[in-house]
């Protein structure tokens, strides 16, 4: 039985994991870098140990240091959260070697799913649809044309070494194949020094839909339905919801079964996510598997009613799954939005800094998973995610209204955040109608960055407030006589009580 867990992570996910540990009566051990001494996970944990300088490759990514603290603190298990070492097969193995339970899958599962080509082959073998195409090098235009005819147009010619949209050409007509290959190859050569290109079916209106799965060590696998994650900016998810507005019951069951089969194909253990790309006609293709907890797991927790971190721990403890597939159903609608310390007015430039003031929304159907507090200085070394706001309601329409209500009342000052950008998304007709794909933000760019017109009256009220504050400060300064007044460390409300006489 696991009695003490080291959380090899920071930020909101570390705190979130610790909450479930506390509910299970399990002690928690935090590790922290130089920049994280005052971070919430250090304050929340039962124990906390320093592991190195601020850059994560000198602290949160150093396997040796983490294992050393696990042994020192007598932790019997390690939860990796997401990011950092969570999908590191070596770490999973090393934990095993040291007799410490890794709360996650085996190195084999991580490796198989981590390598795109191996994953693709494994999925094909398990009869799971993958995006039609080839990972082999294109030899000549003729064979390419044959492949493309088999796959069906449109297709994408992609550089094997590619990334960042370079060395890619969209082909909509068979007559364009030859020139597209030539262009892609030459761009690939220049950009990556390697002109290998391959073919993949192009999904015109792609939706990113993923399935949560849970698998125990006895071969039992269940899925906890889908999450719709198509609202993305630069491949970073911004808003997720479940159920997906695109989905129907038949396809849901089919995809769920395929997700379970995918997990079984790698003897998966623990919580994992199968990502699919889905077109408007609900054709779906395996994209990849995330062999860890996802950032957006809370919407599944809310709609299915299961604490995923507790299930991870139960599975790691060698327990059988408590639920059968038929025990589970989706109840109502849940939406998560991610609040980043980024400035939407300056092309989402990250905005580390000190939090001055926070007002959090509360009440019915609202969950907050965050980690910052007033006075906390968000370090520049890590992810700009500061909080996740999750709502639930009976219907999608009510959930959107609730999320708007909550965002309206969510105030964070000191750093710029994406709150207003999120409010814009919720006002956007394409989002409201549920008819959106991964191009949503790009296609609605103008709407999303537009600002409400400034109303003269609001301006006047702003002027009055600043002015009154200013003259209040001046007035308070006048009768200053005593010499030894100082700003103390206390939360002072009203000047008089804030003065210390020593």
């Amino acid at each position, binding site marked *: 039985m696991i009695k003490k867990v080291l959380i090899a992570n920071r930020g909101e996910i570390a705190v979130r994991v610790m909450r479930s540990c506390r509910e299970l009566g399990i002690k928690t051990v935090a590790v922290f870098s130089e920049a994280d001494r005052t971070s919430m996970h250090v304050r929340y944990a039962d124990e906390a140990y320093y592991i190195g300088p601020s850059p994560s490759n000198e602290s949160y990514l150093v396997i040796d240091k983490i294992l050393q603290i696990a042994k020192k603190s007598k932790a019997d298990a390690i939860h990796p959260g997401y990011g950092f070492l969570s999908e590191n097969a070596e770490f999973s193995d090393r934990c095993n070697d040291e007799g410490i339970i890794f709360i996650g899958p085996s190195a084999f599962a991580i490796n198989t799913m981590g390598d795109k080509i191996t994953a693709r082959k494994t999925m094909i073998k398990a009869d799971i649809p993958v995006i039609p195409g080839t990972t082999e090098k294109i030899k000549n235009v003729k064979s390419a044309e044959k492949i493309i005819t088999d796959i069906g147009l449109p297709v994408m010619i992609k550089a094997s070494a590619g990334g960042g949209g370079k060395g890619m050409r969209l082909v909509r007509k068979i007559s364009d194949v030859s020139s597209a290959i030539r262009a892609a190859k030459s761009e690939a050569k220049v950009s990556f020094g390697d002109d290998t290109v391959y073919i993949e079916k192009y999904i015109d209106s792609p939706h990113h839909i993923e399935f949560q799965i849970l698998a125990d060590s006895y071969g039992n696998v269940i899925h906890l339905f889908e999450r719709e994650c198509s609202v993305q900016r630069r491949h970073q998810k911004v808003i997720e919801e479940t159920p997906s507005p695109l989905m129907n019951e038949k396809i849901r069951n089919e995809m769920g079964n395929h997700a379970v089969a995918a997990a079984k194909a790698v003897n998966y253990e623990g919580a994992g996510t199968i990502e699919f790309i889905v077109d408007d006609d609900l054709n779906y293709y395996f994209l990849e598997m995330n062999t860890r907890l996802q950032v957006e797991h809370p919407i599944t927790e809310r709609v299915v009613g299961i604490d995923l971190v507790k299930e991870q721990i139960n599975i790691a403890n060698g327990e059988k799954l408590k639920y059968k597939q038929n025990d589970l159903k989706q109840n109502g609608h849940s939406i998560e939005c991610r609040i980043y310390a980024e400035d939407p007015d300056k092309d989402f430039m990250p905005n580390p800094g000190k939090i001055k003031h926070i007002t959090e929304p509360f009440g019915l159907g609202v969950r907050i998973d965050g980690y910052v507090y007033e006075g906390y200085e968000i370090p520049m070394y890590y992810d700009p995610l500061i909080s996740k706001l999750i709502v639930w309601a009976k219907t999608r329409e009510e959930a959107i209204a609730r999320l708007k209500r909550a965002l309206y009342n969510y105030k964070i*000052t000191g750093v710029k955040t994406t709150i207003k950008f999120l409010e814009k998304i919720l006002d956007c007709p394409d989002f409201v109608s549920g008819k959106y794909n991964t191009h949503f933000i790009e296609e609605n760019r103008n709407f999303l960055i537009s600002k409400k017109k400034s109303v003269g009256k609001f301006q006047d009220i702003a002027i009055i407030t600043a002015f009154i504050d200013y003259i209040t400060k001046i007035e308070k300064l006048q009768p200053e006589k005593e010499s030894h007044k100082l700003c103390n460390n206390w939360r002072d409300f009203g000047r008089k009580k804030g003065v210390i006489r020593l």
Partner: protein
Amino acid sequence: MSFEVNLNDRTANVELLNRKGNKVKIVVDGKKYDVDIVMVENGVYSIIHNGISYNIELIENNSSKKYIVNTLYESFDVEIVDAESKYLKNRKKDDSGEKNTISSPMPGKVVKILVKIGDKVKAGETVIIVSAMKMESEYKVKKNRLIKNILVKEGDIIDGHQPLIIIE
């Protein structure tokens, strides 16, 4: 006594007629306001005007006379103008255009410096790359420039607004 208050590009004339507790009579650009204004949290005001309830958040902006003012949907830069502010403002107007230092508005880490002292760089050329929170930002010159001095090296951790490179 009347004051000038700047809000973004607007300059407003403000005159306080009367103040009694949290009841304030005040004129903004000739328009008379009768407001109930009270600081409820440090830096957060509740204002009631004609029955409408406003919540305004003030953040001091490097000076006791400058504020970032957050209303419901907007954020304004507000400055109370007095003699000292006016003087500084007039002086500022002299040095127009690009400043002679390159700096990042955010703290971060210097990833790459693409120039050496004495280099001549063309308008739009990137001179330094700074990373923060897993994202890299490139800083460019707006005009043809000469690199006079480089104050940091690759790998350095920098503060927001810290001078990085001096140009001419």
